[in-house]
């Protein structure tokens, strides 16, 4: 079947853009999370929306499941395809089709890299606000699928707040237009429903995004604390005061040291228990300075040992580089890393951080925290050696306990990385069978045969039965649950 399918796909996209050899397919066996591995049957890289449609129609005719994929920087195992499924890689659809500065919007193809869009709109004094740490590589299409966040989403909102309209190719190959150029839906908000659906509803081939004016004034503060709890309390104080920083990020000592030992060294104090990176922006220098002073006073009161303000743009960039490259820097700690993602109410941060430290100690794990403190969006990262079976078991147990603590605090299992394969087993912990059944039923409206990105997001076995959909594809689901490592 492989050779004949590959040949049919090659007839559409050209032989150079079909990967069949095992070594080539292995390149696509993982995403940014090294704990899941799946080998796709075939990889195809269409270059135009017409080719995407033709590929999907061919797969529909053959009844073959497929998985859309962007740059593969996701952190939930969401863009992996099992054997028997085709991986449709969209990185060649990388054109910025239009920048409409007057209406602060742009129309892009899904493979456009996030940072490239902001760079292209900078001459208009505009930018695309959601800024995941992987923004130099990740694509807008992937951002839409995952409803990606980033440090500056505290003030500017996540991906869902910035998508105006979409052209979507459904599993059948039919195209659907969702949303309008002004952002008002034509009926129910199907754009809002599509964003964050992790590829289960179809492939976005054209994406209209909202652009945001670049701030005219920016202040970036680095505050360091000798206790993690004090830093958490500083975060709460800022939020409760009604100040909305552009970003409010926290790194603990383990993370700070990893960064400072790396090429991304930002000058964070190595002896601090935690540092906070706070950015304030606006259109008026004096007003932003006044807000920054107010933040500094709140942080001092919460126990900050020292507070430093970036003197110029280069110092600001250095402070941010340390934060954004922190995941990379953790490569120094061990050969493997689980990047976790959970959200808790902001006031619960101090208690939850202490609980995570206790879990790490109990399982003898190295956990480094680097996260969006202003949103309560935690990233406890566990460094480990995947060749050590005992350690893998401890990582799995520790991860589950961390999730349980976050859920018990009133939180959720993912704030921006998505469910994918990695979080499937946690879904029944936060949604009952009826609610999971509702999600599954919605998926069947968009994709009755469950051929797009099968086995992800909703653990079908945990759903109460809703619609009488025909499920031709159930591979992946059962095996995915509980096989995190």
């Amino acid at each position, binding site marked *: 079947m492989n050779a004949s399918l590959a040949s049919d796909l090659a007839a559409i996209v050209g032989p150079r853009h079909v990967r069949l050899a095992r070594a080539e397919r292995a390149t696509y066996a993982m995403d940014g999370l090294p704990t899941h591995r799946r080998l796709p049957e075939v990889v195809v890289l269409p270059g135009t929306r017409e080719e995407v449609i033709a590929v999907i129609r061919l797969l529909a005719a053959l009844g073959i499941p497929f998985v859309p994929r962007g740059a593969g920087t996701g952190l939930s195992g969401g863009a992996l395809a099992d054997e028997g499924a085709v991986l449709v890689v969209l990185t060649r659809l990388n054109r910025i089709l239009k920048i409409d500065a007057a209406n602060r919007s742009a129309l892009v193809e899904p493979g456009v890299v996030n940072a490239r869009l902001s760079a292209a709109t900078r001459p208009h004094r505009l930018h695309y606000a959601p800024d995941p740490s992987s923004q130099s590589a990740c694509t807008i299409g992937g951002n839409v699928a995952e409803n990606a966040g980033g440090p500056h989403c505290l003030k500017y909102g996540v991906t869902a707040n910035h998508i105006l309209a979409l052209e979507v190719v459904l599993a059948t190959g039919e195209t659907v237009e969702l949303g309008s150029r*002004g952002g008002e839906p034509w009926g*129910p908000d*199907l754009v809002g429903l599509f964003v964050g659906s992790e590829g289960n509803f179809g492939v976005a081939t054209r994406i209209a995004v909202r652009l945001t004016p670049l701030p005219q004034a920016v202040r970036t503060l680095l505050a360091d604390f000798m206790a993690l709890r004090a830093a958490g309390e500083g975060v709460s104080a800022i939020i409760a005061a009604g100040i909305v920083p552009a970003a409010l990020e926290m790194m603990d000592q383990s993370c700070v040291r990893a960064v400072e030992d790396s090429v991304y060294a930002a000058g964070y104090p190595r002896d601090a228990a935690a540092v906070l990176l706070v950015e304030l922006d606006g259109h008026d220098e004096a007003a932003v300075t006044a807000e920054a002073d107010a933040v500094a006073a709140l942080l001092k009161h919460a126990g900050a040992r020292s507070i430093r303000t970036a003197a110029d743009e280069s110092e600001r960039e250095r402070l941010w580089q340390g934060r954004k490259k922190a995941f990379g820097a953790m490569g120094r700690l061990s050969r493997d890393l689980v990047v976790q993602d959970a959200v808790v109410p902001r006031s619960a941060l101090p208690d939850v951080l202490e609980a995570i430290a206790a879990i790490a100690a109990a399982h003898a794990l190295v956990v480094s925290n680097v996260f969006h403190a202003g949103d309560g969006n935690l990233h406890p990262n566990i460094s480990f050696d995947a060749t050590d079976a005992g350690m893998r078991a401890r990582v799995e147990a520790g991860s589950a306990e961390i999730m349980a603590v976050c859920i018990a605090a*009133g939180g959720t299992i993912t704030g921006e990385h998505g469910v994918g394969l990695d979080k499937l087993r946690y879904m029944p912990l936060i949604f*009952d069978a009826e609610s999971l059944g509702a999600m599954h039923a919605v998926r069947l409206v968009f994709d009755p045969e469950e051929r797009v990105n099968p086995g992800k997001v909703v653990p079908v076995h945990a759903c109460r039965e809703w619609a009488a959909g025909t499920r031709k594809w159930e591979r992946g689901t059962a095996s995915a649950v509980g096989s995190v490592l």
Partner: protein
Amino acid sequence: MTILEKVTALLGEGAVLEAGTDRVPRIAPGSPDAVALLLGTAHQEGWRVRVEGAGTWLPSDAPADLALTTRRLDRVPAIEPQDLTATAEAGIGLDQLRQQLADRGAWLAVDPPGLAGRTLGSVVATASAGPLRQGFGPVKDHLLGVTFVTGDGRMVQSGGRVMKNVAGYDLTRLQAGGFGAFGVIVLVHLRLRALPRADVTHLLEGSRDELTRVAEDIAAAGLTPAALELVSPALARRDRWVLAVRLVGSPTLIASDEAGLGRFARLRAEEAQGFWMRLAEGFAVRPVTFRIGGVPAASDELLDLLQHQVGDEWISAAPAAGAIRWSGDATVDRLQRLRRTLAALEVPLTLERAPWPVRTAVGHFGAYREGAGPLVAGLRRTFDPGGGLVVATDGE
């Protein structure tokens, strides 16, 4: 047994309210579970159910076997000022909710059209944003999660209570603006702001053209008003068009924005409150209200078009956001024609409020783009398999 007798047996006499003039039994379940029980029974019995809140926005005139009102779902189980979140039942009046939030130093930055007692559920179900959408976004941006009951009585939770959440599909956004076609919202988790330390409104009167240019200048200057609203003379109760600028936040930020405003007149606090309240209430007076959403640069052209086709006596627009709300009297034919004209310009028209004959003929929605109609129909079947929820989603 009559429907009324069956419902009384099911939920008790306390749930039965006095019927309206159309004599349709009016039932007020006292809990989300009671809503599920009622809708589950209605589905089995084949009853048609219309859903109401406080009855201050949509006329209670849809033909139905019973009216389900959410007005007894008026509890606020949680307000967390530290986290700036709250959980409220759908039937609470916005005025009551606002007061309870203010007592805890918190604020919901949503100012929908209608009377002050309009319910939270109504505002969410219709996604009725007001002038504050300029600074704080549409209604959906204020929602962390909802619990809703489907037409066949299933209770579904979506989202959660925290600031960011991508666990599962975003059914909250489907419910926000679904006009109740996909279930009855019973509980809402809200994202709040701290009660603004300062809140000021400035007005400028002038011709529409002149004020449109001023609004463009304000947007271009990088000012960040919470509201930037162009209001017709009748609605503003002034002689000429009015551009209203609302600034909220810290006194420092406001002072800096005020410096950039120029010749506007600042209202006293009670005047400002009265101005925004009258503007909201003005949309509940005339028989028909709709909203349209275009790109900001087309606002002026869209206002011209409305003036030409349906008049511009009662109109309020956020030129920098591209949103326009219209109120008045218009025939089915005229509304349908207007929707078609706007659709050709890629501008959706959402019918927000009208008598049933107009709603059912025009539909809240319509003019779907390519391929979207079957998806909407499929979602409707999923969440209301018996079609028992009486909602005029699509027109004839």
